[in-house]
């Protein structure tokens, strides 16, 4: 058996009296594309945000390359440089232009030289098709362009894993395609990706494995074929019937 790059054991998260995550266990292998689907409020985003510790889990264990990241001595900032995150609302730095957005974390968190950081940034902005916009401020970009900058920003850190938190939910329909195409291109490079999404066709096409979440639990998991063509659980069937004809 291969060593998983990420392993989550008995993860729980309470917010006040509400149990958002009840008992989550799963692992992700290197190069695997895992999508998490499920209705709103099922805990998908909280799970993703727990993985890079934007949310502190109430209990449970998370191992990254065999190291327990919840250990007090664990260097969280260093860990986060290895985990790219793409947000639903882009979260580009409003005070910087496109190039600076992609450069800043490289020079601060990774201590790369400005020259090297710019080179890497331009390379990745070229890949997402935004090289002609590097001097613009986020305000001047469309939603789809912003999200592609955000992806270039995450990729420029050379992460081991990329997390996507509903990357197309805040976009106008005609811009969704550009972002999904960018993600598809990334998937082909062999990057490990965990994607929370409501784009079922996309999930079906891209995933090696699909997790269906319901009420804070993983209700069903399996290959894309298993989940979309032969769902076993009643709740999975109900959920999918709303999306797929």
């Amino acid at each position, binding site marked *: 058996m291969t060593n998983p790059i990420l392993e989550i054991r008995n993860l729980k998260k309470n917010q006040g009296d509400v149990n958002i995550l009840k008992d989550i266990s799963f692992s992700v292998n290197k190069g695997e594309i895992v999508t998490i689907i499920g209705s709103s409020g099922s805990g998908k985003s909280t799970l993703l945000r727990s993985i890079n510790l934007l949310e502190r889990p109430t209990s449970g264990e998370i191992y990254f390359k065999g190291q327990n990241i919840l250990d007090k001595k664990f260097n969280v900032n260093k860990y986060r440089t290895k985990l790219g995150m793409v947000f639903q609302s882009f*979260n580009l730095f409003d005070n910087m232009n496109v190039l600076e957005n992609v450069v800043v974390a490289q020079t601060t968190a990774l201590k790369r030289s400005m020259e090297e950081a710019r080179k890497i940034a331009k390379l990745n902005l070229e890949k997402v098709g935004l090289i002609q916009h590097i001097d613009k401020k986020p305000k001047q970009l469309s939603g789809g362009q912003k999200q592609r900058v955000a992806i270039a920003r995450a990729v420029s850190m050379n992460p081991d894993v990329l997390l996507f938190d509903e990357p197309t939910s805040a976009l106008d329909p005609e811009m969704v395609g550009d972002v999904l195409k960018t993600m598809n291109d990334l998937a082909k490079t062999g990057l490990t990706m965990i994607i929370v999404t409501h784009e079922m066709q996309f999930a079906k096409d891209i995933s090696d494995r699909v997790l269906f979440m319901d009420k804070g639990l993983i209700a069903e998991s399996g290959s894309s074929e298993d989940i979309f063509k032969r769902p076993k659980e009643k709740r999975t069937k109900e959920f999918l019937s709303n999306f797929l004809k």
Partner: protein
Amino acid sequence: MKKLIIFILSLTIFFSITSILTFAKSDVYKVGMEAGYPPFNWTQKTKKNGAVLIEGSDQYANGYDVQIAKKVAKEMNKKLVVVKIKWDGLIPALTSGKIDAIVAGMSPTKERRDTIDFSNSYYTSQIVIVVNKNGKFANAKSIQDFKNAKITAQQGTFHYNLISQMNGVKKQPAMGDFSGMRVATQSNTIDGYIGERPEGLTAQVNDPKLKMITFSKTNGFKTKADEVMTSIGVLKGNQDLSIINDVLSKISDKKRVQLMDKMTSLQNHPEKADGFWQQVAMIIKANGTYFVAGAGVTLFISIIGTIIGTIIGLLIGVFKTAPKSSNKYLSIINAIFNAILNIYVEIFRGTPMIVQAMIIYYGSAQFLGISIDKLWAALFIVSINTGAYMTEIVRGGIFAVDKGQFEAAAALGMNHNQAMMKVILPQTIRNILPAAGNEFVINIKDTSVLNVISVSELFFAGNTIAQQNYQYFQTFTIISVIYFVLTFTVTRILRFVEKKLDTVKVTTGANQMQVKLEVEK
């Protein structure tokens, strides 16, 4: 922790800069007076007729008090320096060691004797009432002829207590200085004020609208001997007192009357001009440089005060929003420091700046033994006052930055400092810019309260000019125009800067799509 050290360090540097000590030189005799109570003391522009330079200005003081003080200083072989101080500030200035003696037409009342020592009398006076020449009470003969008259006197003098001897008068709140009471009487806001003969005489000579009413012994006020005396005030137990009394004993009554008459006749009469605008033009012509200097000081204090205050606000705001330390001892130190900062903010926001000015300027000298230069004290007061307000504004400015900005920085592995410096603070500064500009405009106006510690800002300059020319309405019209021009200009400049910062064109997504399609063709 590094942040904490930097913060404490910068505060210490700030404090040590602002409290540069000024030691009085021993070959100088510093005498405090209002320099606005003729003929005892007044301000003039030249040193003619034996006037003495006023400390920290290019103006001169003259009058009966100045001439007496000169004789005293000469006997001591010291150089006389006049320090211009408001009436209420005279005793605090003496007890805090900012001056060596008070020679300001002050009477040695029992209450004052509790705090300071007095010399023998150097002038004995008579109590009068100054009224409007065209008013109802212009022909009064007795202090009982003032039924229903609105009467006041100077705050902190025994004159004010004398009002109760007048039956049926409407006692008005006490006023700060004689110039204010003269204006009030001219404009019929009050019917008259109680004063002493020399001052009344001067008022009558300089302003044809005013009339001094004197009383015979039976019709006048009943006063104690020490109340109509004027004496030199010194610190309790001061050794100079015997020298002073020795000097005073050599001046005969006849010489005193001669000197007082000379001083009364000496005062500069305002150049007469007809019409309001001609008078305004004449005041500007005669005092242009003083107005400019006053406006300069006002601008200087408000600019520097606002900048330092904003820096204080930024430091505290950043400190307050920093994540809690996991180290037990550090988090305790943090909590204590936080409590101190909260107290600072609450106290300085909860008390008027005029009160803070009095406490800091006089209190620091009296209880801490450090004498702060007036301008430094002014900068210090405005800075920490602005700092207290800016702290809350900065906190709000940090919270107004979208939470997603923090999260994105954290998710990229940037630590708190990096996120603050690169992402959050630049956006915070943009957020607080309008509020900081607003503080600046407020400071331009509020520095006027610093006249209580005699900082020569615009209001103080205006008061000084008006005390010389007796044209209050005209002078303060000019002052108000200058204030307005300052605040209006500053507001416009700030708007322009804000607009400049926001020049990035905001376009809709739809337009962007079209642009993009063209590019891709």
